[in-house]
């Protein structure tokens, strides 16, 4: 039996956005209808970086609006793409004349609505470019819509946000974002599904001796179930395919993100990070930067994802650049 702190399920996102904006007045402003979040202090003279997608993944994306990262975030209903009109309105609101970079997780609805928004904006003379984030190795198949986008979005948004702050133009940002996305892969493991606001059953039930291996962030099941076991057995099953997919080897440098899917404690996430580092170290791979915490969720799913991102000097410098948002500040 799952319960949540909600009023009417249909109002969850609007009410949460209202609370979010009230909680972070120094960082963000909310436009309620159409719904989008912009920086409290608008930037000037730079390419605007805008992201968005369904809600239910908080702090992604609204939590990353602020100096050094996003200029605007466009939240849809839970697990539902924002509309093209929302995206257009948010993009218009933050365009300074140098164009808008759309960072989009690779889901049909998101891609479609951001593409349409791009066409609507073009009609109005606002230039935009898209970076598709498609890091989910579990959906790496030859046909179909391609790999899903998950936690690598945080890295792409951070890196592009920093580069935009330094004055990069839209073409440079698009190329940079695509390079980072291309160098990112993620695998996610669920121990228990989350439940939609107002629903009393989780989206799937797992037997006690199995995990969903390669799960997404929308409560859907994975293609595989594997045996549950201690982290020392599960984590290497995540690390090795990622390292292989990215062609990592002795001397490679990576940025690692260990991300909780909603209901996973920091104790567990840090334990997973410790295992991942160990496995990578044994392979000669150097974890030069990391982010461990709850950043891209699937409502209250119990599980975690591991993202590896190929790190070069430019990416590292942009990663290290100052950022001040509700969910990420340094």
């Amino acid at each position, binding site marked *: 039996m799952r319960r949540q702190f909600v009023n009417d399920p249909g109002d969850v996102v609007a009410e949460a956005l209202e609370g979010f904006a009230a909680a972070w007045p120094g960082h963000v402003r909310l436009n309620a209808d159409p719904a989008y979040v912009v920086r409290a202090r608008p930037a000037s003279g730079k390419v605007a970086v805008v992201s968005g997608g369904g809600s239910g993944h908080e702090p992604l994306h609204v939590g990353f609006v602020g100096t050094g990262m996003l200029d605007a975030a466009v939240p849809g209903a839970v697990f539902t793409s924002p*509309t*093209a009109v929302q995206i257009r309105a948010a993009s218009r609101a933050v365009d300074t004349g140098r164009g808008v970079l759309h960072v989009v997780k690779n889901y049909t609805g998101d891609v*479609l609505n951001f593409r*349409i928004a791009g*066409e609507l904006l073009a009609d109005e003379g606002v230039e935009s470019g898209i970076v598709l984030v498609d890091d989910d190795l579990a959906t790496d198949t030859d046909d*179909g819509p391609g790999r899903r986008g998950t936690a690598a979005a945080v890295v792409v948004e951070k890196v592009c946000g920093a580069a935009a702050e330094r004055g990069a133009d839209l073409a440079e940002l698009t190329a940079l974002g695509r390079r980072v996305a291309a160098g990112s892969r993620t695998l996610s493991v669920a121990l228990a599904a989350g439940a939609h606001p107002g629903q009393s059953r989780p989206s799937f039930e797992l037997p006690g001796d199995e995990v969903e291996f390669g799960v997404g962030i929308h409560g859907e099941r994975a293609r595989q179930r594997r045996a549950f076991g201690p982290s020392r057995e599960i984590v290497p099953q995540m690390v090795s395919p990622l390292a292989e997919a990215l062609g990592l080897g002795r001397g490679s440098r990576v940025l690692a993100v260990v991300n909780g899917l909603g209901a996973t404690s920091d104790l567990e996430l840090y334990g997973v990070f410790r295992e991942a580092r160990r496995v990578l170290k044994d392979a000669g791979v150097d974890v030069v930067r990391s982010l461990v915490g709850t950043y891209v969720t699937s409502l209250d799913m119990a599980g975690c994802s591991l993202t590896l991102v190929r790190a070069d000097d430019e990416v590292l410098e942009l990663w290290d650049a100052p950022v001040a948002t509700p969910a990420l500040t340094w």
Partner: protein
Amino acid sequence: MAEQLDIADVERWVLAFADAVEEEAGYLTDLDRRSGDGDFGSNMAAALRRSREAVAAAGSTAAGDPFQVLGETFLGHSGGTSGPLFGMWFREFGKAGAGAEAFTLEMLAGATANGWATVARLGSARVGDRTMVDAIAPASEALAEAVEGGLSLSEGLRSAAEAARVGADGTSGLLGRRGRTSYVGEAALGSPDPGAVAVALFYGAAREVAGA
């Protein structure tokens, strides 16, 4: 019958389309249940209910305006895959009739061709992929032939409506290659694609308004 569709005709067309979709909402949803996630009919009906009000409130001054409103409403309020595609589809009709007193057959043929291109581009969908394109494409070809052959507006629209209906029916035998239906494979065979059926209803409504 008139050789043009003026603002009032276009508004009637929109309402007739809304009526038809609302009437068939259960059927359309059921089709989407067989081939997707079962929200097509209710999503379309909801967006059209909203559109009725918006069109009424808009006070159109050009034949394209009701479609412009329809397009914005779908792009602004309709989730899922088909919502924004229909939004862009209507938008092409809005553009075609922007500033015009009425739609001619040529204008409708042009809007349909552009709409086809837009939907195909955005959805990466080709004929035979089991999508709305499978109704759009034959309608577009029928309209082009009608223009070429010098047919009347009502004749052209009847031809388009029939072509769209045949195209939609034909999706029953197609394996999905785009959208959610591509995940269910053969399970969708035997019933048509809901998006294609909706396109057929769209031209059916036009034919009705044109009195054909």
